[in-house]
């Protein structure tokens, strides 16, 4: 893969992340009366978050155990908080 291609992929990932985040925030408001849907949205957000992070750092050639642990810990914190509140 050429440098310009990997740079394009990195930029596209960030461009996608912003509208996706906005969609999820709006959806969490629309479905505020439905705990099941909110939980599913949160799980989707966790999945997108980790996927985007891995892809971004892979193309950035900065993927390391320390960075993976960072993302995983924040995902676990999110999961624990959500399980205590949404369910």
């Amino acid at each position, binding site marked *: 893969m050429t440098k310009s291609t990997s740079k394009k992929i990195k930029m596209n990932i*960030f461009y996608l*992340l*912003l509208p*996706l*985040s906005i969609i*999820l*925030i709006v959806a*969490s*408001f629309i479905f*505020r*009366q*439905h*705990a099941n849907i*909110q939980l599913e*949205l*949160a799980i989707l*957000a*966790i999945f997108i*978050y980790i996927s*985007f*992070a891995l892809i*971004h*750092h892979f193309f950035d050639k*900065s993927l*390391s155990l*320390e*960075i993976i*642990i*960072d*993302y995983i*810990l*924040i995902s*676990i*914190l*999110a999961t*624990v*908080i*959500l*399980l*205590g*509140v*949404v369910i």
Partner: protein
Amino acid sequence: MNWKHLFLPHSQTHKKAHLISAPALAVYIAIFIVLQMGLHLVSTVKPGILGIASNISQQELIKLTNAKREALGLPPVIEDPRLDAAALAKAQNMFAENYWAHYSPSGKDPWGFILGAGYRFTNAGENLARNFYNSNEVVDAWMASPTHRDNIINSKYRNIGMAVLEGTLNGQPTVLVVQEFGTPVEAIAQIPKPQVNQPTSEPILLAEAPKESTPAGVFSASQNQPTPLVVNKKIASGVLVDPYLLTKNIGLGLLFLVGILIITDFFVLRKRAVARVSSSHFPHLAFLAVLTSTLINSNIGSIL
């Protein structure tokens, strides 16, 4: 220890602030898990301490229901004491038999309570709710659900009955709301025999019988005689801690702390013109924003 490094990246190594380092995140996770376990333990050992301070009024619920009907050009439903009694009997039964469903484990259906209160009907419906904080939230939740909304705006219904009852369900203090709708037989002039039709939508159910006596001023489901409905009452025994609000506020506090520190980290590194090989700021912030929105929009109340 340099307290500045708790909140800011290290001045020489430019490592993340201690409060958003991996060990700190692990500590936050542990704190939250311990909090959940502690609340669960307290609810098992001392059930009277945890509870929800509800501000739900029977009259307010009826007023809000009629407001929704009037907004659609429908006539208001009139409160009927028989339906009030049926709603109360239903709520008491839900606590007594400890179930959250339309039909009791012993086979009682919602229509039996209405008929048992002396209200003969041609159409009837029931909505249930639990653990909401105020009357507006209850009605908004019903209106957001198609089947419950159908009950509220059903043009066939003439009467309404409400019950708001406090008790314990599955070891947790719970506030139940039962809403009954009906069209009396006498409203249909030409029917020779009362015809009992099936309800037009599914009722909702929630209940658990309090096992111990409740403090003065709080009406319990264990009293056999008709009791006034509980309105605007808090659980008066001991210290009241709302586990849901406590969890939510601590969660929001943690997310806010982590978010602020990540933003600070971004701007400090930018000012220092330092490129650090670490996880990116933007995905963290986007994810935390989604999570915060989910938490803010979450609601402990449920309808069935």
